């Protein structure tokens, strides 16, 4: 026994060395992982701080109430934020009902056949289409074929199509979380499929759908390329006609066909000018835009977190 001991201790030492080496690698990879994460965090911090330092001095009330101007110190984002708001209204008006209806159809009604398969594959593929291609679609179809022109309506429709897959996927995921017993309960009481859907399925999945809608809208508000492609103007020194009027019929839809600008386009315009003073305006507009998208995405993430914690079927 003792004769065998020395080579065995030799082996033990080698084994220990190997284990130590493997553990070292394990540790090193853990550090590499943290470093990789930190690169993301640092970039974000740099981006945010850089924009805040350049932009915050410009964030005075006039910045929000002035039209763009040739003089950087007088230029503001009035037409841009009004345009963004109106475009978002049109986008939500089309994307939310269409997306929710499509999601409900695919989860609750669709039979397992080739038509359903085609629709599903289509939605997956549309989510991967570059946004500028939607711009080309809108330019060819909405602007020229349908004659909507380079208007708020065209832009809103374009962004609605762009975020449609986001809303559909969110709706489907929210509906999938509802247990089958809820449907069975409704049917047992004699409810029709539509009654079950509108009184149970849609209300119970509303919070999940809302999360998806907010994420989609946050994406739409920052989209630049498709809006440039349909030909939004970068210099707009007037507001579209007011949607609400003092005399009957109180609502006015002229604004739908009005030319417009949006926040990201205003920012793009200022960024691509050579003067540093305009870059400050770009930073200020960008800061407002980042805050808006961060707030919307943050709200969505918080909603989802709340949802996961509270719902116990």
């Amino acid at each position, binding site marked *: 026994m003792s004769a065998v001991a020395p080579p065995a201790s030799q082996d033990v030492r080698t084994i220990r060395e190997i284990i130590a080496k493997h553990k070292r690698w394990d540790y090193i990879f853990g550090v590499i992982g943290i470093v990789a994460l930190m690169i993301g965090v640092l970039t974000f911090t740099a981006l945010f701080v850089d924009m805040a330092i350049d932009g915050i001095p410009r964030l005075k009330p006039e910045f929000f109430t002035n039209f763009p101007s040739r003089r950087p110190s007088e230029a503001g984002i009035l037409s841009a934020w009004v345009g963004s708001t109106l475009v978002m209204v049109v986008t939500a008006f089309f994307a939310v009902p269409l997306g929710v*209806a499509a999601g409900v*159809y695919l989860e609750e009604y669709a039979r397992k056949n080739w038509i359903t398969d085609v629709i599903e594959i289509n939605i997956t593929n549309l989510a991967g289409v570059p946004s500028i291609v939607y711009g080309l679609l809108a330019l060819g179809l909405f602007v020229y074929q349908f004659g909507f022109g380079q208007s708020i309506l065209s832009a809103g429709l374009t962004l609605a199509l762009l975020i449609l897959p986001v809303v559909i996927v969110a709706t489907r995921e929210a509906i999938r979380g509802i247990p089958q017993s809820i449907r069975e309960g409704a049917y047992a009481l004699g409810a029709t499929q539509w009654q079950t859907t509108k009184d149970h399925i849609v209300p119970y999945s509303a919070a999940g759908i809302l999360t998806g809608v907010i994420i989609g809208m946050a994406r739409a508000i920052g989209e630049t390329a498709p809006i440039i492609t349909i030909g939004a103007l970068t210099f707009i020194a007037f507001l579209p006609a007011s949607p609400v009027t003092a005399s009957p019929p109180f609502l006015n839809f002229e604004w739908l066909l009005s030319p417009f600008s949006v926040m990201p386009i205003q920012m793009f315009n200022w960024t691509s000018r050579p003067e540093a003073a305009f870059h400050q305006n770009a930073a200020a507009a960008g800061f407002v835009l980042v805050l808006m998208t961060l707030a919307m995405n943050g709200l969505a993430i918080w909603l989802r977190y709340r949802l996961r914690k509270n719902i116990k079927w």
Partner: protein
Amino acid sequence: MSAVASGATSATVPAEGLTSARLAQRRSRIAGEKAIELTLFAAASVSVFVTIGIVYVLVSESVQFFRHVSLWNFLTDTQWTPLFDDAHFGIMVLLSGTITSSAVALAIAIPLGTIIAIYLSEFAPFKVREIAKPFLELLGGIPTIIYGYFALLFVTPLLQRIYPDLPGFNILAAGLVMGIMIIPYVSSISEDAMRAVPMALREGSYAMGATRYQTAVHVVVPAAFSGIASAYILGISRAVGETMILAVAAGMQPNLTFNPLEPAATITAYIVQVALGDLPHGSIGYQTIFAAGLTLMLLTLFFNILGHALRKRFREAY
């Protein structure tokens, strides 16, 4: 409720009129249900019409374009000057910009995204993951025009300090920032794929004395590879279709180069450049952006099909 009530009355008074009234009510109810189903189906098929619309617009305008320019010239010409008197239409020029910028971006996004995914899925404590995942999601939600601003006015001056000859517009800065932008797409899908790998596989590996690193690299990653491959494909599609970062920071001069230190125009940046100008509807310049868009679509389609094939080839079922 009403069904119960009418059921009770019909039991006591089995009148002829009442039954037919109930049948009529039932018929109208079924008709209403059918109408609703059809409406919902119409909403779902909008997505199919969007695809048909995209293909129709791109192909019909491109057909007009290829009446003026031969496909051979389009693919082999080494100049892209569609708006000059001496017009050349060599898509290779724009393609080189797209390929170079995507290569730079993916050289950042794929390694970093994969490492972050492995770290979050296999190494990170619960707390770190709960904070890092929403943070990465926020990073992915920032508008690309913001990244463009950052690339042009922060990263480029920073790089110029290291390499003073770098021009103000260059692919490198745009590509680097684009890579950071794509990290969340790669990491979140890869991580989901890795977390879907059954625990038993990891336990088997640990039982054999493997470390976390060995388990991650030799067991989890191969098992999740089909999901990781789709994350990479999505990253590639994002890089190829990215527009604003390149339009802002890479300059918009067409330049046949694979050198990231030079300025260049990509397919997407060219479309933006033309759209910013004032080209008449139906002119050859107007048609070029649809031909460029069609090239972009075919490129992303190619990667999607490749992704599908990869997923099939590496799918592991447990």
